[in-house]
């Protein structure tokens, strides 16, 4: 589904409408969405700082120097700027990927299983950062996950897709108290 929204996969039927505009036939680069991948996809030959500002080389006015600095501070990446990607931990890489995407000021932020490669304290801390970023920038964020706990604790609204069909779309509280399909949530992990 992320592929469809992003534009990697072509839409067979139906339409993609964002803010009243029909984006079904608009190519991926022009939709204004951006994505943070599950395995971060950071360029291994560049260091942290170069990765973060990668988008600015083609769109130099997208973010000002102050905004870049602000993002780096927000995600606590100041000390890691000179490091090579392979020297970073999973949580650090996640933050760099997030920073890189945020610098591009996407209209919608997509995240593909952002927490699945992390656990414990780092996981919780990244969760908080995602929530903070989304709120701070009033950014619509769509997160794909297999973990029901993640979905229910992180989101304002949860969309459940079962067997390729939409099963339910509601606030977390409603889903917990009035699940349309109880079997889905309480399957063993």
């Amino acid at each position: 589904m992320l592929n469809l929204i992003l534009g990697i996969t072509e839409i067979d039927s139906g339409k993609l409408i964002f803010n009243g505009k029909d984006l079904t036939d608009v190519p991926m680069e022009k939709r204004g969405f951006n994505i943070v991948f599950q395995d971060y996809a950071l360029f291994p030959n560049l260091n942290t700082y170069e990765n973060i500002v990668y988008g600015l080389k083609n769109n130099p006015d997208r973010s000002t120097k102050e905004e870049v600095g602000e993002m780096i501070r927000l995600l606590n990446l100041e000390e890691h700027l000179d490091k090579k990607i392979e020297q970073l931990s999973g949580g650090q890489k996640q933050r760099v990927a997030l920073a890189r995407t945020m610098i591009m000021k996407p209209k919608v932020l997509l995240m593909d299983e952002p927490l699945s490669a992390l656990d414990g304290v780092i996981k919780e801390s990244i969760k908080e950062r995602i929530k903070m970023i989304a709120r701070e920038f009033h950014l619509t964020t769509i997160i794909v996950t297999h973990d029901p706990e993640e979905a229910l604790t992180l989101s304002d609204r949860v969309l459940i897709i079962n067997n390729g069909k939409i099963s339910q779309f509601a606030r977390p509280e409603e889903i917990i108290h009035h699940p349309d399909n109880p079997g889905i949530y309480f399957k063993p992990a």
Partner: protein
Amino acid sequence: MKKEALLPKLKRMIRSHIELKLIFFAVLTLFLFFLAAPIAMLLLKSFQSSGGAFWTHYIEVFTRSGFWSAVGNSFLAAGGSALITTVLAFLLAYTIHYTNLPHGFLKIIRTGAVLPMLLPTITYGFALIYTFGKQGLLTRILGHQLFPIYGLPGLLIGYVIYTLPVAFLLIHNTMGYIDKKFMVVSALMGDKKSETFFITILRPLTGTLAASFIQSFFLAFTDFGIPASVGGQYEVLASLLYDEMLGSIPDFNKGAVIAMVMLVPSVLSILLLHYLERYNVRYNKISAVENEKNRIRDVFCGIFCGILLVVMLLIFAVIFLVPFVQEWPYQLTFTTEHVREVFQDRVLADVFKNSLLVAFLTACKTRFSSHF
């Protein structure tokens, strides 16, 4: 309880280490006997002389007319073909990984590209002659000869066919480990198509492309089957070596010198390959990302690969056609006479059996050695 369990564990550890050590020594001995010793003897032979200084043979060979031009020719032919092979192999691998052509077609490319591996290199020479030569199949079809096949052109084509499968396998394999998600990231960050291509495909493959070039280079450089058949007057080191060692008057000492000279680029190649290890693509979780839709790219790649494969298959088709012809090119009637003769020839049957046996044993030994 703990102390009692420790002793047998320790014994097991030492035993397994001994096994490892034994295997290591076995493999080492194998290499010593069958690789190091012959090379050492070769080195000795190149210096050995009766009544002259130890460098006599080297001087003889180096001052012999045509030696250095042969060296230059070798480098030119091997280098040129390595370059062509790497480019072609890259295009073939790229078509398989990065286009949306039908899967059946891609499968044919994959099989066709490694087909030449099935035959000895001297066969390519003959196949070339029978296809492109003055009385060749293509020449007869077209009415005139496309290009002179003896000398550099024939060598280049022969070497390319010989090294293409190896280069292709190398590049095709590594390409499979490139994470296509980088292309999505690059496109979303506003990169032009050429920038995306460079940073997500070429750059990660730099080490592999270099390795492919080096590998193809020293395969071509040390081959003698192709120069023997289509080399013509274009002398290369391999043909010189053949002349010295197996010519009418064998001179093992001079032959040893030539062999040493040939060894130098090979050793350098291996060292370079070793150095290039650091540029290898790091293994990432392979995710299935669709290729971007691009009709023009697909058509261009499809046509190119199609032509390449047809040319290669054509060259081999001759090998299957000619045995059934009475006497090429004079009597072009169909016959099974030659086929029958070969199968009835006892000597040939024995030789065939020997080849099978040797190949089988070599494969076993190699499998055994590489396992450890």
